[in-house]
């Protein structure tokens, strides 16, 4: 690396680092939207009436069936303007990643719910719990623990996907890196710095998720043990 490149990285570093806020903003909002929608979708698919189950299947099929970039353009150039909504690109990016994440998360949670043994629900009902209380107090705490390892894929998935928001001009890491490149004509050092920041964010996030898994671990229960 030439001294030139180092000087440029030092000069533009703060601007590039500023992209972390937007990238993380996209990722965390998308994860939150995905969770808030994905869990009810999963519950609907397991416990809901047939009509609801089919509607959810269509939703999942749609959002998992299209490339992220295609979804992003459909929403950015099509749906939002058609609805007369003039939202910042950041919001549209977070919504698209979130809705898509919800489709994936719903299937992770559905698997978790369905792998709780049926005797748990039977026992809960036999004690006089309503189905709602049983789901809330007995089924979900177990299903979420079972889901956590699978769910931890969502973070790196959405983190890497978030770079497509470059295409609609959200000033996240990749967008900023490209801007720096076009200003300075220094290419690889800048993109390497960008790549390094993605990897660092990935590592930090996975660390948090692993600690969360440990925190909620229960003896003899969960993904790393055979269930009785």
């Amino acid at each position, binding site marked *: 690396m030439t001294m030139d490149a180092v000087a440029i990285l030092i000069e533009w570093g703060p601007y590039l680092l500023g992209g972390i806020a937007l990238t993380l903003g996209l990722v965390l909002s998308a994860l939150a939207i995905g969770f808030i929608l994905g869990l009810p979708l999963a519950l609907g698919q397991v416990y809901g009436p047939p009509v609801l189950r089919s509607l959810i299947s269509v939703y999942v099929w749609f959002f998992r069936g299209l490339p992220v970039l295609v979804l992003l353009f459909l929403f950015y150039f099509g749906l939002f303007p058609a609805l007369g909504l003039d939202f910042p690109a950041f919001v549209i990016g977070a919504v698209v990643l979130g809705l898509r994440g919800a489709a994936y998360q719903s299937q992770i949670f559905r698997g978790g719910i369905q792998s709780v043994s049926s*005797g*748990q629900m*039977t*026992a809960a009902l*036999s004690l*006089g719990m309503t189905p709602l*209380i049983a789901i809330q107090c007995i089924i979900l705490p177990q299903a979420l623990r079972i889901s956590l390892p699978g769910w931890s894929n969502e973070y790196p998935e959405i983190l890497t996907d978030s770079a497509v928001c470059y295409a609609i001009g959200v000033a996240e890491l990749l967008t900023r890196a490209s801007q720096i490149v076009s200003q300075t004509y220094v290419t690889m050092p800048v993109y390497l710095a960008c790549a390094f920041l993605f990897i660092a964010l990935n590592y930090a996030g996975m660390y948090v998720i692993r600690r969360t898994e440990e925190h909620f671990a229960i003896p003899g229960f969960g993904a790393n043990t055979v269930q009785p």
Partner: protein
Amino acid sequence: MTEKFILRLEDIHKNFGDREVLHGISFTVKKGETIVFIGPSGTGKSTLLRCINQLTTPDRGRVFLDDEEITGCGQRISQYRQRIGMVFQNFNLFDHLTAIENVEIAPIKVRGMDRKAARAKAMEELRRVGMADWADHYPAELSGGQAQRVSIARCLAMDPEVILFDEPTSALDPELTREVLEVMKELARSGMTMLVVTHEMGFARSVATEVIFMEGGSIIEQGPPAEVMNNPKHPRTREFIGKIDHH
């Protein structure tokens, strides 16, 4: 009505597909009685218990708890289930909760008991089944016998009027079976009303107030254990008792 029944079943029918599992079962239970159901596997004994608390909906027939009909009561069934405990062959303890949390969760979430009172009550019930020292252990850390005793405590914490035992010792070896049967005997002695599906003939003989022999979804013979087990009238009962008593 001359006599008061805590539980009354009238003509319960149940089919699974075109297989008839229960074929018109009727009987009554008085407070403090221990009814033991015996009979070959697959004769509908477990289905019958599940028809009582409506975990399985009977196709026909009625179930009364304290003269209130609980069949076809819709959402209110969860209120009746609070008064009817159930103990399962596979324990079905809540795997994500410790022993004491298993026992206190229904009083807290169903009855709205405050946490402190529920914990005290749960501890008392664990003590009653000899599991107080294991309060903070998770189900996976308990032996089958211990888990079953916790599940009995979980029932007791709701102060049920009747407890249904669905083959409570079938998943246990003889030694663990004994510790669970001891707890059940103690319960029967304390006046709990119990309906027990079991293959433990010794338990039936010594604890039952009435033994009901079922086969093919029907009650073949019923009466005091001395009668049904020592001097069965029906040839099928005689054959069954003869077979099972010899091991």
